[in-house]
């Protein structure tokens, strides 16, 4: 496994908290998956940000990915490959965090997103 632990920044945590409120989804990992996938769906490369891990939110990769954690890893790897990033563990983690960060931001800034239904509609493309 490329990396075991994911630890989020305070800011990311705040964003997730807000999402928790708006969507009614209680699980950190679910929200993180959504954030990650939303970012992946964005064709442009994620911006580099300063990765900080100063919040109490922390999870194992397997917790993040659940039963399909290897699919997520494949997606990450594939994306990194596409974006011409090296596929070493560290870089993969970095890229993952960039995506996560970008996803959380996208979701929190989305004015239309008012509940879990918004996420589903997004996924189904019925907006």
């Amino acid at each position, binding site marked *: 496994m490329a990396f075991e632990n994911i630890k989020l920044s305070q800011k990311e945590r705040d964003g997730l908290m807000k999402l928790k409120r708006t969507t009614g989804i209680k*699980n950190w990992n679910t929200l993180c998956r959504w954030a990650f*996938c939303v970012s992946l769906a964005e064709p442009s490369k994620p911006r580099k940000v300063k990765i900080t891990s100063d919040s109490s939110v922390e999870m194992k990769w397997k917790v993040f990915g659940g039963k*399909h954690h290897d699919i997520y890893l494949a997606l990450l790897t*594939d994306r990194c490959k596409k974006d011409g990033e090296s596929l070493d563990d560290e870089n993969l983690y970095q890229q993952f965090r960039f995506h996560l960060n970008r996803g959380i931001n996208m979701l929190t800034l989305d004015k239309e997103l008012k509940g879990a239904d918004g996420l589903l509609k997004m*996924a189904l493309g019925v907006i």
Partner: protein
Amino acid sequence: MIFDEITLHNYGVYRGRQEIKLQPQCDEKPIILIGGLNGVGKTTLLDAFQHALFGKLASLSSKGNTAYDKYLSKCINKSANPQDGASLSISFSHALNGSEHHYKVTRSWRKNRKNITETVDVLKDGKSDPVLTDSWNEYVEQFMPIRISSLFFFDGEKIKDFADFRKSSELISTGINQLLGLDLVDRLLTDLVVLEKRKTLTLSDHREAIIIKTLEKRILELNGKKDKFRERKKEAEKEVSEIEAKIREIEEQFRVEGGDLYRERKMLEFKKAELNKRTENTLERLADIAGGTLPVFLVRSQLKKILEQVDKEELSKNSDQLNGTLKKRDQQILKELSKRKISKKALLVVEQLFAEDIQNRHAHKNILQYLFLRQETIDSIKNLLQESFEAEVKEALQALENWTSLQLESENIERKLAQVPDAESISRIVKQKEKLEGIYRKAQVNHDIINKEYEKICKDINIASSDLEKEYQKKLDTDHSHETASRIVTHSKKSRKTLEIFRKKVIKYHLERIQEYVLRSFRALLRKDTLVEHIRFDPENYHVEIFEAGGKSIDIDRLSAGEKQLLSVSLLWGLAQASGRRLPAIIDTPLGRLDTTHRTHLVERYFPQASHQVLLLSTDEEINEKYYQMIRPWVSHSYHLDFDEGKQTTTVKPGYFW
């Protein structure tokens, strides 16, 4: 009528059974002479005749005021056994319509313990006649009218009183009324008066009129009341409808101000709570779905690409191994071929071919492998793309649809709830409405009461009207009967007048006849043939007036006692003659206290003429030897009453004292 025989059995002083034959031998000898000393039972014999005939109606000298049954027990002979009792039997002949019949009346009575029982038995022509027996008291009138019996059965001692004004008037009026059947007229007159009274009473009976008046008054009152109540009913109806209109108004207001919503508020709130719950559930459901593989669905195209990549990587991995194997095989084949001495050319061609093939196969080798996915992962990706996504998408769509409709519902309810007016403004209306409804109920009740009252009045009017109708009908009938009554009254009055006239005329006519008879009798009996010229009866009061020659009236009080007695006898005689009835005469104490001349006149001129059958009950002082000799030519036969001191009984024996 002629008495044939009288039988006495234990009657008064007559003990045992005694028969007296009474039939005169011939018409020339009408007198039956019965002699007896004072107190031997002459008067008892006179009573026996009347008693036998008339029973309790008889006016008996010895009866006085005693009750009949007491009198009966008194009549039983003292020494006879009261259980045997006594009996009287009288037989007589009576001609009716030209044929003669024989009758026998037997009256017997006996004492049992306390009671006296009397039985009457009447035989007609020897046969018991139950009809006659049952109503003998009525039938006896046919033979011997009881009221004129005193004209034929009398006590000479007592008749002198008839000369007295009052007595004579009474006698004459009785005689006239009875004899002439004027008692019928009198009865008719009194009956008519009674009838008139009764009819006049019905005439003065204005019951229907009164009832009609009260009914009419009542109907008038009721109609007035009805009008009043109709007004009140209208008012009440108006009131009710006004209130109804107000209620409708207020209900409209209530509706406009969201009253219905207000009423629905609770329901709405309930619904909302329910919706909220459902929304929450749906949200949870959405969150659950969101927790599934749908985020990956976002990047499904990437997944497809990954699978392509996987295929490529597989291919390149395989071609590496194959290339190695193929090279080895190519070299072995070439080695074999060179050994088999194949032409250089052919060998070269084959080598060429192998080399090209390897070259081609190397193209795959350039493909970069970077995923290195485990078969498991590949399978699960395929599974996602082929099955799971579809299912989850379907589920998500349904949940979303659900969600959307819930949203809509929630919005509706929210909107409605937003429209629900605040309690205060509504409660004002509600209070108003409740107040109005209270008023409405009262008005309704009031209206109902008035309506009921009104209906009752109508009913009463109907009843009263039908009653009135009935009363009118009755009145018509009564008027009719009144008419009849008044007609009856007028006719009755007329009839009475006519009857009065008739009566007067009849009396006048008969009085003249009676006057003739009496005058003739009186003259026959009087000594002084010339004393009396004329006798007149006042038709009003029947007072007797006697006129001497020259038309001078004689004061009756101036007549001597003897003359008075003679006048009385002539009154009786005259009346008896005038009655036109052939009845036997029974004269007790016939000569009384008359002087010799008068006695002679009676004996010679009256007794033989008195009737076709004359029973003389005389003492030895009255019809003495002298008069006995005088009267003999007219005597049919004679008896004398012999009292036996020892046996304490009187026996009837044939023959006179001499």
